[in-house]
């Protein structure tokens, strides 16, 4: 067993599943996901030595995956390949839901991912790591090489922007808007 093998076992093997999921959750397109994942792996390979020495290598690797997925999502938005709201993606994996739930759920997912695609890079990275991957703020800060307070700001700004883009999907915002009216 060589040193690189051990490094892989220590750094990547425990989070292989999380890496794949991190990319898939954002991309959700069987054709694009492979490219984005490959891009993430290439980045990890290029930065391998740095990752090995990083205080939180696994958070850094997940951040690279999320970054790559978000880049792919943005590219898709820019190129106009985005499915219009209301169009149902082909893969609806949760078979326990009813057809009506599936349609509205898929619609919601599309809206949310589109909104995430419209976020600036750092905000998207921070909110995805925090809300989806549930990585603590401190670890996100280490991975993003910034202060914890900066991560919190990115997350807060991302939420504010998403609130504006997704107000029709959030009951709390609805309620607030109705009470103001």
């Amino acid at each position, binding site marked *: 067993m*060589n*040193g*690189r*093998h051990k*490094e*892989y076992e220590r750094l*990547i093997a425990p989070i*292989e599943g999380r*890496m*794949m*999921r991190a*990319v*898939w*959750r*954002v991309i*959700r397109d*069987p054709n694009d*996901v*492979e490219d984005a*994942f*490959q891009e993430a*792996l290439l980045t*990890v*390979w290029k930065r*391998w*030595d*740095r990752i*090995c*020495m*990083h*205080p939180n290598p696994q958070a850094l690797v997940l951040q690279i995956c999320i970054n790559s997925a978000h880049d792919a999502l943005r590219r898709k938005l820019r190129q106009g390949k985005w499915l219009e709201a209301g169009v149902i993606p082909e*893969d609806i*994996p*949760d078979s326990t839901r009813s057809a009506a739930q599936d349609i509205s759920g898929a619609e*919601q*997912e599309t*809206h*949310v*991912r589109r909104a*995430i695609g419209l976020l600036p890079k750092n905000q998207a990275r921070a*909110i*995805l790591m*925090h*809300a*989806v991957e549930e990585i603590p703020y401190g670890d996100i800060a280490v991975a993003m090489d*910034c*202060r914890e307070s900066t991560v919190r700001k990115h997350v807060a700004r991302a*939420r504010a922007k*998403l*609130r504006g883009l*997704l107000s029709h*999907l*959030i*009951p*709390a*915002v609805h309620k*607030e808007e109705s009470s103001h009216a």
Partner: protein
Amino acid sequence: MRNQDANDEMDDLIRRSTQVEIPAEVEDRLQRRLAEFRTSVEQRPPSRWRPLAYSLTRLPAVRVMAMAAAALVAVAVGLVVIPRESTASRVYAAAAQQLRNSQSLEYTIVFSELPYVGVDFSYAAPGYQRVNCSWGIEVRADHTARKQIVLMHLTRMYVVESGKQVESPANSDDWVEQLESLPPAADQVLGERRVGGKRLIGYRLVKAPHGTSIPGLKSFDLWVNAGTRQADHVDIAIEEPGKPVYRMHIRNIRVNGQVDRSRFDLTPPVGYTMITASSAKTRASETTSQQNALVLQAQIRQAAAVTAVMLPMTGSYAQTQAASERVESYLKTIGVTPVGPPFGRFESEQSWDTGYPVPLATHVEAPFQLVSVPAAKIASVVVNGPWGPDSTGRWSAFLKSVVEQGYLPAGPPMEIWSGDDAKVQTQSTEMQIAVTKAK
């Protein structure tokens, strides 16, 4: 509260909209990509430079052994990249030849000024080496006996290695082999520069020597003293795509000087615990040592500017008391009364000084110097007890506290000694270091 609810709701919406399982067919394809990636990682050749540069710009976060190894790699690379003889310049040729044939060599590698991260390196033929890192790790090696000791001053632990284990990147045979692959001439002559009364001529290498790997090397500038034809210092710039230029320096180069042989002493200091080969035992001794480790709480404050008479020194810090007494006696001779207790600034064993704060209008003669220590934000802590003993251990604990409070060292360590030298119970040491807020 309403805000918190709204935040939770938003996070929940994102989570619900993104947390889906991967279809089996997609997962299979991604697994294949991972398998390919794993193979390329396992076949990846070892890199000797990048982890070093990266780890050394971060203070002793965790893995001290890894950092010690990185320091050794740094030393090896530092030596490897020293340019060799060129017919284009006799000055360059003389300096390079002297380096190649040196019987002893000392220098300081400053990896970062801010925070200050430096490594003192000493070598004496036929195979004695010492690497002393500013974060409390010291490696002493005797390659003739194939034995080395790694001292971790923070945890007061040590490792003794012998035989094949000593075949580290710092192995002198390895250096010789790599020196042979250096370019025959520098790529560029940078011209002359006057620094501190010395006339320096600069030579630049822009490519790593054949057979060595220094990713991102932008320039390697060797400055040679035209008078003595000895290497004076080296400035190295590394630039990686998308990153700011990273600069490091090799300073205080001394070739064929008298090296204090006690630096290569392989006897572990009293009170240090040995780490055994067994990992179980290692864990046990780590626990014990951590319990015994000194804990200091650094105070961050603004320090006023000070004018002082200092005596520049090189060599072992064990000369501190004698040097300080020399300054005291000189001040008496010229009729100057110190305005504060003595202190020392310890940049490296190749360049440190000690002296007394004095009134502004004091005039001194060489070798004494009148220096101004500027006002700065500092971290400090006062340790009661005799001056001197376990200074390195104290410093490691002190720096740990500085870093834990979100600050980074921004200058060399400084010690101020109060009390009566005849009464140990009255003695105390204030440790100070300029700091900057960690970004």
